[in-house]
Structures are given as C-alpha cells and as structure tokens.
C-alpha cells in the first residue's frame, strides 16, 4: 500500500517536472519557430510551426551581424581574459596561501572585499582613466577583466591550495627547482579541477557581458552581445529578422552546453559551495 502511494507520488512529480521542463524550453521554441517565418506569418500567429523552412532570415541576420567577425572578437576576448585570469590568480593565490604573515592576510582581505563593489560604482572613473591613456580597446578590456575577475578566482584557488601539502613544495625546492618552476610544474597541474571551475564561471560572465564592452569597444570590434544590441536597435518590430539573429547567437552556446553540461554544472556548483 505504502509503496504504491510513494510510486504514485513519484509519477505525479515526474509528470509535473516534464510539464515544467517544456515550459522552460518554450522561449527557445518560440524564438526558433518564428525565426523561420515571414513578417506576415508572424502577424497571423506566433505559436505554430512555420509554413516552410525558410532560411532567408538567418542568412540576412548572419550578414547584418557580421557574425563571424563578432564571434571571432568574442572568442578572442574571452579566451585571452580567461587565460590571464587563471594564470595570474592562481599565482597570486599560491603566494598568499604559502605566506602566513599579516600582510598576506591583508591582501587576501582586500581581494575578497573588492567583490562587494558593484561595477557601476567604479565604472565612470575607470572609463575616464583608461580613456585618458588611450586604453579603451581590446587589450584594455582584457586587463579590466583581470581586475574584475581576479577576486573570486583568487578566493577559489586559495581554498583549493590549502588542500595541497607543503611537503610537495619542500621536496621540489630540495630538487633544485625555483619558485616559478615549482609552481608551474608541481602546483599548477594539481589545481586543474579548480581551474576548470574558474574558467567556466568566468566564461559565462565574460562571454555574455554587455555593459563593459559597450563602454570600451567601438562597433568595429564589437563582441556578440554588443553587436546584438546594435542589430536589435535597427530591426525593432522586424521580429522575423531579430529572432533569426538571436537564434544565431543562442544556438552555438546551447550546442556547447550539451557537450560540456556535466563540467559546467559541476563547475558552477563547486564555485558556489566553496
């Protein structure tokens, strides 16, 4: 009896879950089906499937977005920013973790405290300062991402380093390694799991960031979100084109997600638990 009831409850929960899952997917469904429609078809109904699989909207949006160029800019900025965030944050966390002085504690506190400052509170002087030395460009942007991204990354690396025994350091030093060799050949490889977490958390943020690139980069070097903003402004109320453009930006991310979902979900949950 009892078993049966539990079974039934479980089944009910499953049905509810599936319905909720479909609701969750509905925005993506609506975006894609309407991206295939003509303006007239959208006007007469947005819920159903398109009459024909017309890819004209996609071709036009792809060209207007100069998608390959924006994709290239996004990939360039994200990978370079994440590479330097990973390298410099892990080095700094290592230095702070292996130094138990008061000064080291103060540095660590400052890095953590900096996380409390909202972007808007530093944005105006930041743009003015970097503008006055002509650094409102891609290298300037990457440097800014290091500044904004290092706090959380140092925090995560610092926690992970506590679990790596100091005996390893000593053994390597006895073998004649200098501090950088020790870090690079012994410690850094051991930090790989947390590096994956750091990379995932930062890529979700930097890939999607709009406000900072909009203040730093011109339209010629626009990343995908930035280009999407310009594009959307031009095609307001031309939903068939706008939705095709949005689909082009969304679909690669979803495909990537399905391949790396396990790492992504683990990375996000690690990042929050630590």
């Amino acid at each position: 009896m009892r078993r049966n009831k539990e079974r039934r409850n479980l089944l009910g929960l499953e049905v509810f879950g599936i319905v909720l899952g479909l609701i969750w997917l509905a925005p993506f469904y609506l975006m894609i089906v309407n991206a295939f429609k003509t303006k007239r078809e959208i006007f007469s109904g947005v819920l159903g499937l398109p009459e024909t699989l017309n890819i004209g909207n996609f071709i036009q949006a792809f060209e207007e977005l100069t998608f390959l160029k924006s994709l290239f800019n996004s990939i360039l900025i994200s990978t370079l920013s994440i590479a330097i965030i990973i390298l410099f944050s892990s080095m700094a966390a290592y230095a702070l973790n292996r130094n138990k002085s008061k000064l080291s504690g103060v540095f660590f506190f400052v890095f953590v405290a900096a996380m409390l400052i909202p972007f808007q509170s530093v944005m105006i002087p930041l743009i003015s300062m970097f503008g006055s030395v002509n650094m409102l460009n891609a290298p300037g942007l990457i440097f800014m991402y290091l500044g904004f991204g290092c706090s959380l990354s140092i925090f995560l690396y610092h926690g992970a380093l506590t679990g790596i025994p100091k005996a390893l350091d000593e053994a390597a030093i006895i073998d004649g390694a200098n501090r950088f060799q020790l870090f690079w050949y012994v410690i850094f490889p051991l930090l790989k799991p947390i590096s994956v977490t750091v990379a995932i958390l930062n890529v979700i943020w930097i890939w999607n960031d709009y406000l900072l690139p909009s203040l730093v980069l011109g339209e010629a070097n626009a990343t995908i979100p930035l280009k999407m903003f310009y594009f959307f402004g031009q095609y307001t109320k031309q939903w068939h084109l706008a939705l095709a453009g949005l689909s082009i930006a969304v679909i690669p991310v979803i495909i990537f997600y399905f391949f790396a979902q396990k790492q992504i979900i683990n990375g996000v949950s690690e990042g929050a638990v630590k």
Partner: protein
Amino acid sequence: MSNRSPWFWLFLSPVVLSLLLVVVVPFVYGFLFSFTDWNGLVANSFVGFQNYVQLFQEAEFLNSIWFTVKFAVVTVLLLNAMGLGLGLALLVTRSIRSNNWLRTIFFMPNLIGGLILGFIWQFIFINVFSDIGNRIGSEALQGWLSTTSTGFWGLVILTAWQMAGYIMIIYIAYLENIPKELIEAAKIDGASSVQRFKNITFPLVAPAFTVSMFLTLSMGFKIYDQNLSLTNGGPFNSTQMVAMEIVRTAFSDNEMAYAQAKAVIFFLIVAVIALTQVFYNKKREVEM
C-alpha cells in the same frame, strides 16, 4: 614565501596592479569626484554635499531605488523558493530517467546573457502573450511591458526563468551532502516527512541559504542587461533600476559627478545589505 622574498611580490604583482588600476583607484577617485563638479575630464571646484543633496530630491532616482528594492525582494523570495523546490523535487526523483534532462534544461537559460534573453522575452511578452490573449479572449495578456506593473512582473518572470536553475544547482549541492543516516534515523523514530524537512533538511541546508541569498540579493540589486533589453526603463523611466539610472545619468546626460554620487550611494546600499545578510545568516547556521 616570506614578505621579503622577491617571488612573493612577483607572483602577486599582476593581480595587485590590475585590481589597483581597475577597482581600487577608480573607487577612491570616484568617491572624491562625487564632491566636485567633475565632468569626466576635469573638476573645477569642490561642491561639498551638493550632488548628494540633489539626488535625494530627484524623484526619478528615488523611484529607481524603490523599484529596485521591490524587484530584489520579490526575486529573492521567488528564486529561493523555486530553487529549493526544484532541488528537492529532483533529488526525490533521482531514480527517474527524465531527471538528468530536467536538471540540464532548468539550468540552460543561465548560460545565455541577460541582454539576449531580454530581447527574446520582449517578443514573448508582447507578441506571444497578445496572441494567446486573442485566442482565449483574455484582456490581461494584452499590452505587456507597456505599463509599470506588467514591466515589473515581466522582469521578475524573466529573472526567475533565467536564474532558478542556478539557485537549484546550489541547493542540490548542499542537499546531496546531508547524510542519509540522519533521515533514516528520523524515519525510524517516526518523524513525518514535514517534520523531517523542518527539523533536519532545512537547518542543514542553511549554508545553501546563505550562499543563494547573497547571490540573489546582489544579483537583484545590480541587474542591468535584462532591464535594458526587456523594458529599456519604460514606460517613462518607471521601470528603470538603479544600475541603469547611473549609466544614463553618466553617459546620456553627461553629468559625471552627479552620476558618481549616485554610484556611491548604490555601493553603500549593496555593501550594507550584503554584509548584514551574511552576518545574520552565518549566526543561524548549524555546525555539523
């Protein structure tokens, strides 16, 4: 690595330099400039608290704070309820096949930026809602985003859809760490499922509560992209939140010092709330 070791400074210098130039110096400069008539390039004179006096008299700014507070309170409650609910449901149904797929689907919107999601939902609230409204003959689904309250709920729905999966992941991570023996022991002692939840599960997921409260609160207060792409602050700037107010004052109205004074107030609000909240929740957590 001692303080005098050159390696210590070498390892630390890149991040110290970037944090200094990107966060610390602009933060201090901004604070000082908020007491001047700075125009982004030069400050001619010291004006004392004039910018601060002015902003507390500006209806639009006060309205944006009030709107942001309401938004943050509603989304924090909703997101934590949804995150915990989804997390518990997925944990109970772990044996079912669809389970893993659902986790993947609920988390999916999180990977896509608020700007793009806001545009997609603009289509849904305006075109899809009115289409459904026409079919079922409901007036309530017409004209979404054209009033302050539909704009508000539009932003809440978008944020809930985007972030619930993220909060769910956090709760699942903590729920999975609860030792099964505890639950089993309580079952044997005859505790009902409500009692088990109230007396065991809930106190033990308190750290998850701290983390997700912190994340949802700061996210609720700092939200910008979704605001820009979904309502663009409209109608008549009534759905404009603080972050957007500051960007507009600075880069549309070009009132840099005044915008910076707003930014300082914004920092104070965010910092005070975050610290109180962490302090308060830390006190309640149970040691295992």
